[in-house]
């Protein structure tokens, strides 16, 4: 005989630590309870005496030391951080130089009065061309040469309009006459003087294989 009630209800009371009055008067349930006792007394036998791999502690240390060896060390992170900061600073300085106008060649219109840079030019504004040491600057109005500044490197030429600076030359002229202006900036010093006509001078540069940049501004 078995005691269904015990396995269904009585055992819940036992696990909750509550008394089970039915069990005292039921021989089957008493036997069932004894059977449960045997079972729970046998459970600690599982794995008793088993200690597993005798070298398990050494393997734990191996894993720990292996993980530490693989993990990036703190100074690696510090170095990476320092490099990142250095890159950011370098980038910031570089951008600052770009923003501050240290890119050459650079062509700007400086309005008369309030010194604001603009692409729109008006009479009496100034045209400023900032170039490196190896560039010639030729400025034309309506295709005719109005100003020529040889490269600072080797020329030694200094004038009010062609002023050398620490990194090359700054050319400035007042745009006193309305009309189209063209600016030629060569990549290398040119050995000859320009003829004075834009199309011909441009052709001469191309024939000689001299790289150049050309910019056009309309002065109103």
């Amino acid at each position, binding site marked *: 005989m078995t005691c269904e009630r015990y396995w269904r209800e009585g055992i819940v009371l036992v696990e909750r630590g509550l008394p089970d009055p039915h069990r005292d008067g039921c021989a089957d349930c008493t036997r069932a309870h004894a059977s449960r006792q045997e*079972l729970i007394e046998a459970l600690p036998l599982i794995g008793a005496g088993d200690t597993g791999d005798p070298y398990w502690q050494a393997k734990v240390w191996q894993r720990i030391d292996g993980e530490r060896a693989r993990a990036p060390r703190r100074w690696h992170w510090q170095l990476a951080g320092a490099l990142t900061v250095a890159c950011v600073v370098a980038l910031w300085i570089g951008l600052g130089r770009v923003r501050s106008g240290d890119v050459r060649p650079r062509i700007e219109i400086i309005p008369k009065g309030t010194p604001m840079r603009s692409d729109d030019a008006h009479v009496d504004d100034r045209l400023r061309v900032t170039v490196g040491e190896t560039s010639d600057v030729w400025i034309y109005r309506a295709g005719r040469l109005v100003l020529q500044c040889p490269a600072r490197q080797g020329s030694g030429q200094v004038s009010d309009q062609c002023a050398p600076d620490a990194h090359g030359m700054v050319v400035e002229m007042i745009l006193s006459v309305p009309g189209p202006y063209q600016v030629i900036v060569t990549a290398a010093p040119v050995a000859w003087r320009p003829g004075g006509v834009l199309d011909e001078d441009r052709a001469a540069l191309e024939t000689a294989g001299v790289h150049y940049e050309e910019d056009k501004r309309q002065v109103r």
Partner: protein
Amino acid sequence: MAMWKMPDDAVGQTGHDDGDIQAALRANDLRGALTLMMNRYGDEVYRFAYAVTHSHHLADEVRQQVFVEIYRDLASFGGRASLRAWVLGITRHRCLDATKKHRRWTNRFKNDPPPDEEPDDHELERALDRSKLARILAACLAKLAPAARDAVVLRYHQDLSYDEASAVAGDNAGTLQQRVARALPALRRCLDARLHAGAGR
């Protein structure tokens, strides 16, 4: 620096005084502390893992993982629970991971036909040597659903009170009591069936 604070009941249910581990941690001696913990709890973790996974290989693997994890988290443990409960809690989680990877028990469980009737209570009284009984019990435990198996192991294999088991398992004590109450008859049926089969051969 190790942030270490032992609870008032630093002496666990097993009677361990973890003061030496506490001292090692205060001295920021993590390796020393782990060595003490491995010596103290290593076998218990292994037996717990074996009872849950029913595999010596998995139990060894789980034990190694547990202590690697303990070493990693030792400095930040902070004494939120008793050391033993913390160790067993980690063990339980690693066992769950291990058994998920080895789902054989699930298939066995699903393929098992339900027992036809309650076997005679006297059958448990049949003499068997303890090691054989333990092996059969381990096999039967492995067939239980994970939550029920954990509850039984924590309560009757690890001999934790329901409140302690609750702290380890993260379920309330009443839930664990219900699980155990349902699991024990299933275990007993399994045990009797195997004893029957063994006697019939």
